[in-house]
């Protein structure tokens, strides 16, 4: 019986700040905590890869190419005899960084126009939403490919493309919150006594949007990682000598019948990491108050 406990805790929560309540609820989300733990470990592993990795990821050994997993090489070796486990760990750096880069770009593109649309409304809002709708009517990966075709294949360009694809969701989220807040009586009152827009934004809109934004960021980190993997797999993302998990799978594709481990392990790394981002996002969402959850 955990429910009466929960009720008691929520009652107790009435006297706590929103942030404390959020934290308390989040700490009860066991899967989300495991996911967070995994992501932290992964980030640490990637950051300290040169010290943690069992081998030099670039050291070739042409006597031992395309080996199956062994005690020496946990994930086997690739076509140049390089250690796949070490390469997977090093690729985590690129994959994680790229995912956050894309989310950052999406925030950069999505948040300001969302705020503007929500605060000003009218024709401005109309125009911004029309463009957003048009952007969302593109099949996402095809749009990404087109953008990369123009900018040229590189990881940064691929992440710009992914960022553009993800931006409408942030835009809508900001717009929705801004609209809701702008209609509150106290904000109207504040405006009527001459408080500035920036005061309204920092004091009223941002605090309201921060938690749902974090949920979305977590989920989109997973989405961006999948998109990066797909684009790198196609050769449109990470370019040699850099290697992300998706790029590793793309290279391993050629040796699929000899050496499946080349694609199995980086692929698993993507799946588990993306799952961790999703589970974390779900946990964050469930930790938000009931009111916020319903809006989602």
């Amino acid at each position, binding site marked *: *019986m955990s*429910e*009466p406990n929960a*009720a008691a805790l929520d009652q107790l929560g009435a006297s706590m700040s929103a942030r404390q309540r959020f934290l308390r609820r989040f700490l009860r989300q066991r899967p989300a905590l495991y996911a967070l733990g995994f992501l932290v470990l992964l980030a640490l592993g990637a950051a300290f890869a040169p010290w943690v990795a069992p081998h030099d990821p670039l050291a070739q050994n042409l006597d031992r190419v395309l080996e199956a997993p062994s005690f020496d090489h946990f994930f086997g070796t690739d076509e140049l005899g390089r250690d796949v486990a070490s390469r997977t760990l090093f690729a985590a750096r690129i994959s994680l960084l790229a995912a956050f880069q894309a989310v950052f770009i999406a925030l950069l593109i999505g948040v300001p126009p969302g705020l503007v649309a929500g605060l000003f409304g009218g024709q401005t809002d109309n125009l911004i939403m029309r463009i957003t709708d048009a952007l969302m009517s593109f099949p996402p990966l095809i749009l990404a490919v087109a953008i990369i075709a123009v900018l040229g294949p590189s990881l940064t360009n691929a992440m710009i493309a992914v960022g553009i694809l993800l931006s409408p969701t942030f835009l809508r989220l900001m717009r929705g919150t801004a609209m809701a807040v702008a209609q509150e009586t106290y904000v109207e009152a504040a405006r009527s006594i001459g408080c500035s827009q920036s005061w309204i934004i920092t004091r009223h809109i941002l605090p309201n949007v921060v938690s749902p934004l974090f949920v979305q960021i977590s989920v989109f980190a997973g989405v961006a990682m999948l998109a990066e993997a797909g684009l790198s797999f196609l050769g449109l993302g990470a370019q040699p000598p850099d290697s992300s998990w998706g790029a590793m799978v793309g290279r391993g594709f050629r040796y699929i019948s000899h050496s499946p481990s080349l694609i199995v392990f980086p692929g698993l790394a993507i799946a588990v990491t993306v799952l961790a981002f999703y589970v974390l996002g779900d946990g964050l969402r469930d930790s938000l108050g009931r009111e916020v959850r319903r809006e989602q």
Partner: protein
Amino acid sequence: MSAPLLEVEDLAVEFLTDHGWVRVVDGVSFSVGAGETLGLVGESGSGKTVTSLSVMQLIPRPPGRIAGGSIRFEGRELLGLSDQELEALRGEAIAMVFQESMTSLNPAFTIGDQIGEVVRRHRGVSRREARVRALEVLELVQIPDPEARIDAYPHEFSGGMRQRAAIAMALACDPKLLIADEPTTALDVTVQAQVLDLLRSLQQRLGMGILFVTHNLGVVADLCDRVTVMYAGRMVETANVFDLFESPQHPYTEGLLQAMPQLGERGKRLAAIPGTPPMPWQMPDGCRFHPRCPYAEAACAEQDVKLDDLGEGRSTRCRRHAELKLEGAE
């Protein structure tokens, strides 16, 4: 008194909650004869709706369960019947009308389809024959221009029309017993009266028994032959409708009668029953009504009160009923 169609005896229903298995209906017994209308009256949370759903065994399982007692229909025990046997009875011999016609009709299908569905289920007839029957019952419940309305969707009906359609659906297979759970509560007063008139005239024509669940004593006076009053999961009084209104034998019944607005008594203050009903997981000891009862004594809180049979189908669950002179209503 006619032979009982439905006999409920010592019914107990429990729900699994945060507080464990909680008994929300406890020791409820009543009967409904053919052609008779029994009113089941109580505040929300008194267990009247759960009782009525239990007859059809439609309480959600989990978290609900029927923990004991007996429900007999035409002498046949319903508890323990297989799903198939129950399904054969539902909508055929026993039909039900619910409170919210907006939500109890499926928005995605036409009225005609939803009525025809019952007929096809129980009579095994073709779509076309079912439609003919649907038209008949729509006419029976006085829906104007049924030919045109039969293909409408619930959202295209007004509240009163929807409730008529719901009644038509219940009557489609000529049930012997109709269970109506607050069928008029969500309606405007004038529409409410029309629907009650309809139910009364339908009962006279079709001769079915009605179990009428309501919190509204005015409606009871209008429609019912006998009344069972429930409080906090237990029945506190049963009587025929005249006796109940004239000389209630339980303080709770008195309270309900006093709280009922009456014509020609402007200016007289309506007496609300003080306090609120107890939560099912913290029932008071002794008489469950004693914390709110103006006549309560120390003894009322101590021992459990048995249902007292007063003869002639009357019973009450008050240990002081003999000494109290409770006030009725006209």
